[in-house]
């Protein structure tokens, strides 16, 4: 009898266990945690915020920091040496997939469920693109929001006002404005109308408004079509070709400028309009440089972008961010501790800490509002937030935006009706990468001379299409279609 009762009790306890409270993270044991990330500067281990975290969680954070350009190579070396860091930022999709496949990464979903990390759970759901970061529904990394980083068109507002021009609504009107800028030459230095960087990819600022999609679209028959196959894209090429042929409407160096050169041209009055990255730091950089060149110059940002045959759309970046991942070799206690730290960094208190630091040290309170100290930004934090803030969620710095134009831009560019997203940012497949690389080469081979007029568009478009087929675009189509279907979505859905 006693035996049966104890057996029943045991069974009851076992059944009840899963319904018990979420596991608690035990902080009693001190541990060393290595974080590997890229950042704009070296971060001292005596940094006050790092110390704060060390004290709060009873850890010793070891930081391995590299510059962004060298990060991938350094991380690859560590992985190849079977020395994966405890906590690191992920930049390369292909390497990430390989790590998951070879079981080298911590199962974040499992840990989040077990310990009930609420902030991380929220982050795993932070926006519709977060779902793309899971592998078959399981998260091996924690998504990071980009904040708003996309491309727009800046232009000389003071010129527009002086010439009494209307803000262009279509690309043809935009061409008119460029012509007017070039002809009026208000700064007196033989300015031209418009410049961009990145040759064809820069001029693709107009692309979504011609084709109606970003990279892949769906035809009326339900087939997947790539932008280079589309006749609407051809129309865009012809549009730029015609402008390039005109005298002064476009910067003659538009196909060969780097982003610094393009920015310099705009900020010294050599061009009237510029395609450039838009985010709050870039915006304030440009305002500052422009006004130091000419005090009455004014910076304008085109909102909405001019409309093409398909409407007015802007392109949004999708894949650019660096999420955090963790080594599978961590024992559970250590993994729990790291995630606890992460969870804290994602909380409002944590985000506040990494944005503003400590009063009197990193920020001052002015009229009840926290204001970051310039000195901190330039000597300790590098740009807009502390390293830990950037690692946990780069997009935290969006909370700093106060400029009204930028706020308007954020609203404009996060509205799905205005945006065409490239949703392949998290997709990596060996064959797809090889074919895409070939297609990019063809882009330089064909599209660049087509725009500069060296190659006749009508005569050579057929050859371009044939070359695309030879490079494997049909195979790529199949792979892409399979990917979208596995995610239960289509390329023209404006999720981002």
């Amino acid at each position: 009898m006693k035996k049966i009762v104890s057996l029943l009790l045991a069974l009851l306890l076992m059944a009840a266990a899963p319904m018990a409270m979420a596991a608690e993270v035990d902080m009693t044991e001190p541990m060393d945690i290595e974080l590997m990330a890229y950042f704009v500067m070296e971060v001292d281990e005596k940094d006050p915020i790092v110390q704060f975290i060390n004290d709060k969680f009873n850890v010793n954070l070891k930081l391995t920091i590299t510059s962004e350009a060298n990060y991938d190579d350094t991380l690859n070396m560590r992985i190849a040496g079977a020395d994966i860091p405890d906590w690191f930022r992920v930049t390369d999709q292909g390497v990430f997939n390989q790590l998951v496949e070879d079981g080298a990464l911590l199962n974040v979903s499992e840990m989040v469920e077990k310990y009930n990390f609420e902030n991380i759970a929220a982050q795993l759901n932070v926006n519709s693109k977060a779902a793309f970061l899971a592998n078959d529904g399981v998260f091996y990394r924690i998504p990071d929001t980009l904040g708003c980083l996309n491309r727009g068109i800046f232009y000389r507002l003071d010129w527009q006002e002086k010439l009494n021009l209307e803000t262009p609504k279509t690309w043809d009107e935009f061409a008119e404005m460029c012509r007017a800028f070039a002809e009026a030459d208000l700064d007196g230095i033989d300015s031209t109308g418009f410049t961009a960087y990145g040759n064809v990819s820069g001029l693709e600022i107009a692309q979504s408004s011609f084709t109606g999609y970003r990279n892949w679209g769906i035809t009326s028959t339900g087939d997947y079509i790539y932008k280079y196959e589309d006749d609407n894209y051809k129309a865009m090429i012809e549009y730029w070709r015609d402008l390039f042929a005109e005298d002064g409407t476009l910067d003659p160096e538009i196909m060969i400028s780097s982003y610094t050169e393009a920015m310099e041209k705009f900020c010294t009055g050599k061009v009237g309009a510029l395609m450039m990255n838009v985010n709050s730091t870039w915006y304030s950089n440009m305002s500052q440089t422009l006004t130091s060149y000419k005090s009455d110059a004014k910076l304008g940002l085109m909102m909405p972008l001019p409309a093409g045959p398909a409407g007015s759309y802007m392109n949004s970046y999708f894949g650019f961010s660096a999420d955090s991942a963790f080594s599978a070799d961590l024992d559970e206690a250590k993994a729990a501790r790291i995630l606890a730290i992460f969870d804290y960094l994602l909380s409002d208190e944590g985000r506040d800490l990494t944005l503003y630091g400590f009063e009197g040290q990193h920020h001052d309170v002015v009229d009840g509002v926290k204001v970051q100290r310039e000195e901190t930004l330039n000597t300790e934090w590098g740009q807009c937030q502390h390293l830990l803030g950037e690692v946990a969620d780069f997009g935290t710095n969006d909370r700093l935006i106060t400029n009204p134009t930028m706020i308007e831009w954020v609203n404009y560019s996060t509205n799905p009706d205005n945006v065409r997203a490239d949703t392949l940012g998290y997709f990596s497949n060996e064959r797809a990468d090889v074919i895409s690389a070939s297609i990019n080469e063809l882009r330089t081979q064909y599209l660049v001379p087509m725009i500069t007029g060296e190659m006749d568009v009508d005569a050579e478009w057929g050859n371009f299409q044939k070359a695309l087929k030879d490079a494997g675009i049909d195979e790529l189509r199949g792979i892409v279609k399979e990917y979208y279907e596995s995610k239960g979505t289509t390329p023209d859905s404006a999720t981002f």
Partner: protein
Amino acid sequence: MTSVAKRGPAKRLWREIWRNRCIYSFVIPGVIFYFIFRIYPLYFMQIAFRDFRVTRPLQKCAWAGFKYFQELFTSVGFRTALVNTLAINFYKLIFCFPAPILMALLLNELKFSAFKRVTQTILYLPHFVSWVIISSILLNFTSVYGGMFNQIRALMGLKPYTFLAQKSLFRSILVLSDLWKETGYGAIIYLAALLSIDPQLYEAAEIDGANRFQRMWHISLAGIKETIVVMLILRVGSMMSGGFSQVYSLMNSQVMSVGDTLDTFVYRMGISNNRFSYASAAGIFNAVVAAILLFSTDRFAKRIGERGLF
């Protein structure tokens, strides 16, 4: 003596080795160094023949045979890159190889040593300025917005010209900018070689009535002949590579078809997928061609009576 001859070639070899044992003591430490740091890592050349991924040790990566070589050779743009590399390096061979020699010979003729030293110091300065900066300088000069070259064109009544975007000019720009940057520094080796020529030869030749140019040709040039030959062999051997920084900094999309070299091509293509295997295959290809070029040039040099490299 007779007993040695009777024992045959193997024994003769050992005697040779024993006789030269001191020389070996000079060479062996170096060989060990090379083995550890250069040859042993070549075990990883296997990467080119495997589907290498960093997450698995080399042995566990699937064997891929010549797949990556095939991919390399059939890549869009490979052939263009190959042709460009050979063409550009050939032009550089014709212009940029003799230039430092000529400069060294002329510097050697300068009379005032103070002037000579100052000249040397200044002439080799551009070598230390990176190609990134030189390309921005060139962009400034050729800029359509008031760049010096275009201002000259304007004075002549010509329209502004995007020099750096012209296919017909790009290779010349590569050659000329290389001349500008490297001639001074490259002359140093030849200057040092010139110093080992016995000055009495010059005096004797002058007494015999040889003029400046004859002395330059028959004594200076002849005296550094070995150095020149060795440098030439090495130069030809590196025809397939070199100049990555320069081309990468100066190249743009409009001149890609004449300027893209193998180094920049592989760098670009390798950035995407599985770059290790692809890049490794390219590396092996380069090395094989370099070996062929080196040995043929060396054979040719020996044929015309020089010591050569090997």
